[in-house]
């Protein structure tokens, strides 16, 4: 089998492992079953290993970092989400696996989107032939992974908060972490993502200056990455504003994630941009 064949096989296997892991995570949200939780983590880990192998194989085949078109970015975006989630799960000492039910489906959808795109390996166009590509896109993967994690945590927050507000206590509510913990974790994820997003914008600006002769040109991709940065800046400032922490902050994390998705997919499809790499 060729390298491309092995890459496709690893990618497909990773996709199905993520699918199985997602099913397990959703299952443990509704049924307290320790073994299912462990299985979910194991499946996600196995998926991540195979996904990593697929990314490495593509790197070998293309002889460059796999960051140059929609398929490649979708693949590493999903990889970043799963990595961010598993790091958090380990950080929480595997106590709150139910959070996986809010994060893993996003990774699965992004993987599904990637599988619909062309996997042809294209050589890099002149503007992309730069060392900044690795730094710029590499930091974007970490930023987007962290923002997706914050989105999942905020979604869990909103569900639990709604239940608590309406005094509707169900078993599901007790499997979701407490509101202060969800808020804390979400804030940590956004802080990391915000730092990385700042790096994405700064490295992108330095690269744009080298390639196009200007730091900033208000290209739709640049504008939307700045909008994303603004939304998360508001999120981080809610800590100091009366009436903003909690539910409103969680909604901001959800809106911020919608901006992330639009920056990545919407701009490429709907808006003419220098960054529209199909």
């Amino acid at each position, binding site marked *: 089998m060729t390298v491309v064949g092995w890459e496709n096989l690893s990618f497909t296997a990773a996709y199905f492992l993520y699918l199985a892991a997602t099913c397990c995570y959703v299952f443990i949200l509704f049924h307290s079953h320790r073994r299912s939780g462990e299985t979910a983590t194991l499946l996600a880990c196995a998926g991540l290993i195979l996904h990593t192998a697929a990314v490495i194989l593509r790197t070998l085949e293309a002889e460059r970092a796999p960051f140059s078109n929609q398929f490649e970015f979708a693949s590493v975006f999903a990889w970043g989400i799963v990595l961010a989630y598993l790091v958090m799960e380990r950080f929480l000492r595997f106590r709150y696996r139910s959070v996986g039910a809010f994060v893993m489906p996003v990774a699965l959808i992004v993987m599904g989107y990637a599988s619909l795109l062309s996997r042809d390996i294209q*050589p890099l*166009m*002149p*503007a992309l*032939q*730069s060392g*900044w590509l690795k730094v710029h896109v590499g930091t974007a993967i970490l930023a987007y992974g962290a923002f997706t994690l914050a989105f999942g945590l905020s979604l869990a927050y909103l569900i639990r908060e709604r239940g608590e507000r309406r005094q509707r206590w169900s078993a599901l509510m007790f499997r979701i972490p407490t509101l*202060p*913990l969800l*808020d*804390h974790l979400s*804030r*940590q994820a956004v*802080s*990391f993502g*915000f*730092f990385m997003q*700042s*790096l994405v914008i*700064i490295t992108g*600006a*330095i*690269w744009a*200056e*080298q*390639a*196009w*002769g*200007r*730091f*900033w040109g*208000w*290209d*739709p991709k640049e*504008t*939307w990455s*700045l*909008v994303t940065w*603004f*939304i998360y*800046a*508001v999120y981080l*400032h*809610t*800590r*100091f*504003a*009366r009436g*903003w922490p909690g539910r409103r902050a969680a909604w901001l994390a959800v809106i911020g994630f919608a901006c992330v998705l639009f920056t990545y997919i919407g*701009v490429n499809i709907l*808006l*003419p941009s220098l960054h529209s790499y199909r």
Partner: protein
Amino acid sequence: MKDMIKRKAGQLSSPRHLLQHFYSIQAGIFLLLLLSALSVYGSLLPHAEALEVVFRSWWYGFIFVLTALNLLACTLRRLQQLTRCFGRLGGEQNRATPVALSTYSHRVAIKMPGARQAAQKRATVLLKGSNYHLRTLMLPQGMALMATKGRAGVYGTLVTHLALLVILAGAYYGALTGTANIAFGFPGDKIPVVIEGDPHLLEISDFYIDYREDDTVHQYYSELTVSSESPASPVVAHKTIHVNNPLRYGGKVFYQYSYGWGVETHIYHPPSGTAEQVLLTPGEGYYFAPAGLTVHLLDFYPELDRDDGGLLFSRSPAPHHPHVLFRLLDEQHRPTTPPALLRAIGQTVELSLLEITFTDYRNSTGILISENGGKMYVLAGAIILLVGLFLSFYMRPRQILLLWPPASELANNPPSPLFWSELTIYGWARHDRVGFEAEFHHFIDALAAAGRKMT
């Protein structure tokens, strides 16, 4: 009651009150959301229109400056509080005001087996392992071991907001004083440029395109030479530039920006016996006086093909099958008949008493020559911003104070393993309180592993 309402209304509209509103974090949130909404609107417009209507408008820039000033003002308002916090983490406050113990958010009293020295040693190892800086203090309340970390993080937000102002100032300075011009030229052309106030010449020594096997472009290269008028050292800079690799000299930057085509055109007028050789670029016309006609080159197709509708296009940028589309215009700039003609390079066409031959083609290069004095400030601001964010997020100001009351001191004098030492542990964190709580209780558990928790 009426007086009260009047007073309240007066307060609300007073400049001081408005200023207080402007300094508030709520105003900052509003401004950031407003900027987001306006940016989204701008991104949906065609790019040139968006620049004119939104992004380069005075009011958009004004909102940007207002936002930065608001964020800075919010931080400066809290400067006293930040300084106090910085001092607290340095231990000064605790020495000056012993009652500050009440300001700690966490308080746990524990009893440890052995002398105070043994407990202190164990605590020192644990706290140093968590990167705390330790100092021993003699407080009126007793002997204390103060552990602090993340002191620099107190000023994280201030540094971040100052950095944003530096970036904005640099960007505005660059926009006001910077220049950017595109110069097109063929190999051998010399373009005058002014560098640091002195006239210079930019010579395009060569330009070539590196094609891949599938005829896609791998890279564009321009060989540039910058020379001064000084006879002693005419050549001041020389470099083969390509996309992502510009030539920088004397504050000017020369970028590989674009490329184009030029067609060598031979025009002969048999009745007068006049012939001329000109280099035409697509879109360009040449008025040939003997015939009173203009040769107008409409387009150049490196590899000509037609789509299903018969429209012309180039299959690749590589010149495998080059053709030109041209027309002749009369004195009134009206096209003669036929309106447009397509010819291969090397072919001669006889038209309106003219013999026109497109003898050869050449590549031209587009060089962007820019100068931006604000660049360094923007870059410096970006670095400071990252430092500020790092301080804000990862230098978390925390303090743990272990206090042995004087009675405990006496009880353990002389130290003996038979004695118990009593101590109270205080904890405080500026932010990330959930994270600190976990660390604090982890520390207590580790310290009290051999002891007995009292409270």
